[in-house]
């Protein structure tokens, strides 16, 4: 087993358990590489990668770009704000124009769910989905579960609660798929208005009481409230949300056990998580960021090795 079952990374739901294991084993090697004095390997020197972002991003874009450069790939960056998309060009035309400059791989973030899948059917390049609307964000889920594996020694059998805005979150959906695939137990927790209907059909538990959820879990993944995706109010005030679904030091200390705290960033300090928790030893937020580069190197390496 040394090859992915897919030619694109469009979502966790298209991966097998063996794919994830292969990505993790490869990421272990790359994590060792990026901790060397010289953090670069020449592997992808004949590969060109375009990072196409139709939506804002800091962490993901930097992380992808760094991963590509550490592998010695040539990188071009494209943000929708400064482009011909504003002049009315279609997605396929935009990407085909980029590909005719001999690009082998496209990393794309797009506000529309399924944009990556659409693109993979119409252009000739390996596609990595870096977030498509409220659908999937596969590399985030891979780095999240990789970080759980690193901290707790494995993912199978672990209890993970995803807290907050599940409705608008691609991180939540990809995490649910990735965790279930690796044999973890998953619950989602948040106000009813932010939990999608029929979420139970994905095989996850639902809990609206944060304290109960935290007492049950080994790991709590705290999501950001995505104000930019909310067209109307889902809860009365931020202050009320924070009191019911925010995590703070005194709440953590009142639990029966010590749990691991994760956050995909960017953090709204004082809303879903207080600073004393975010910066504590229980938090693996910065490990997630470091692992993000290794995971993305692994995904790019494995997909690139399938380009003929």
């Amino acid at each position, binding site marked *: 087993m*040394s090859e992915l079952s897919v030619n694109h990374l469009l979502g966790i739901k298209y991966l097998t358990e063996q794919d994830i294991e292969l990505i993790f084993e490869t990421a272990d090697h790359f994590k060792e590489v990026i901790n060397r*004095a010289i953090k670069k390997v020449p592997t992808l020197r004949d590969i060109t990668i375009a990072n196409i972002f139709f939506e804002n991003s800091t962490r993901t874009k930097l992380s992808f770009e760094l991963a590509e450069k550490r*592998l010695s790939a040539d990188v071009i960056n494209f943000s929708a704000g400064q482009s011909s998309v504003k002049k009315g060009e279609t997605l396929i035309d935009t990407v085909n124009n980029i590909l005719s400059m001999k690009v082998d791989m496209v990393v794309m973030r797009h506000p529309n769910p399924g944009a990556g899948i659409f693109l993979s059917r119409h252009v000739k390049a390996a596609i990595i989905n870096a977030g498509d609307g409220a659908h999937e964000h596969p590399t985030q889920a891979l780095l999240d579960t990789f970080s759980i594996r690193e901290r707790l020694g494995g993912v199978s059998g672990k209890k993970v609660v995803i807290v907050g805005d599940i409705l608008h979150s691609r991180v939540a959906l990809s995490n649910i798929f990735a965790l279930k695939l690796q044999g973890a137990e998953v619950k989602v927790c948040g106000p009813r208005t932010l939990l999608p209907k029929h979420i139970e059909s994905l095989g996850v538990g639902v809990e609206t009481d944060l304290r109960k959820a935290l007492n049950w879990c080994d790991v709590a993944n705290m999501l950001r409230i995505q104000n930019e995706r909310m067209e109307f109010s889902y809860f009365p005030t931020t202050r009320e949300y924070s009191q019911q679904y925010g995590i703070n030091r005194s709440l953590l200390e009142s639990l029966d056990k010590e749990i691991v705290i994760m956050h995909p960033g960017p953090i709204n300090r004082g809303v879903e998580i207080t600073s004393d928790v975010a910066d504590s030893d229980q938090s693996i937020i910065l490990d997630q960021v470091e692992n993000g580069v290794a995971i993305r190197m692994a995904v790019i390496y494995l997909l690139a090795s399938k380009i003929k």
Partner: protein
Amino acid sequence: MPKRHDGEFNMSQKVLLTAKEIDILLHRLACQLLERHLDFSDTVLIGIQPRGIYLANRLTKILSEEYQVKDIALGSLDITFFRDDFRRGEKILEASTTEIDFLVEGKRVVLIDDVLYTGRSIRAALTAIQSFGRPKEIELLTLIDRRFSRHLPIQPNYRGRQVDAINEEKVKVLWKENDGKDVIYLINT
């Protein structure tokens, strides 16, 4: 290609070196290293993954147990990401572990691999080792030197045995700790 079972091969093969002959070669190579590096205070041994590590471990064991050389710095180097045949072969390259928990800056490095063939692995290793610092010098030790098969101008400083094998032939080095016995085969594929 015929399937192989537990290190036994169905195709035509002959024994190139027996366990006893390998043992004599290992002792000679250990002595040659000793002659040049004396107390190994400035020297690091690097086994090249995946198959060079067995040879590196054996030499280190002989040096420490039979010649009382203390605290030999021994590491393993994976060259997968430095190879020049990425996406060119049928097989996807699978990485192994790199373990170098010391600095090679200013050190005398001895790269160790079981078979020297085209020289491309060693070319990759020469690049890969630079990620861990600038060594004072780099030498190459190899158990089997297939002397007429080189693609690059690379020669070993220490060699166990020179072999004249044609390209269709394969030299396979088996180790007791991994394959059940010490033996070197010349296989006609």
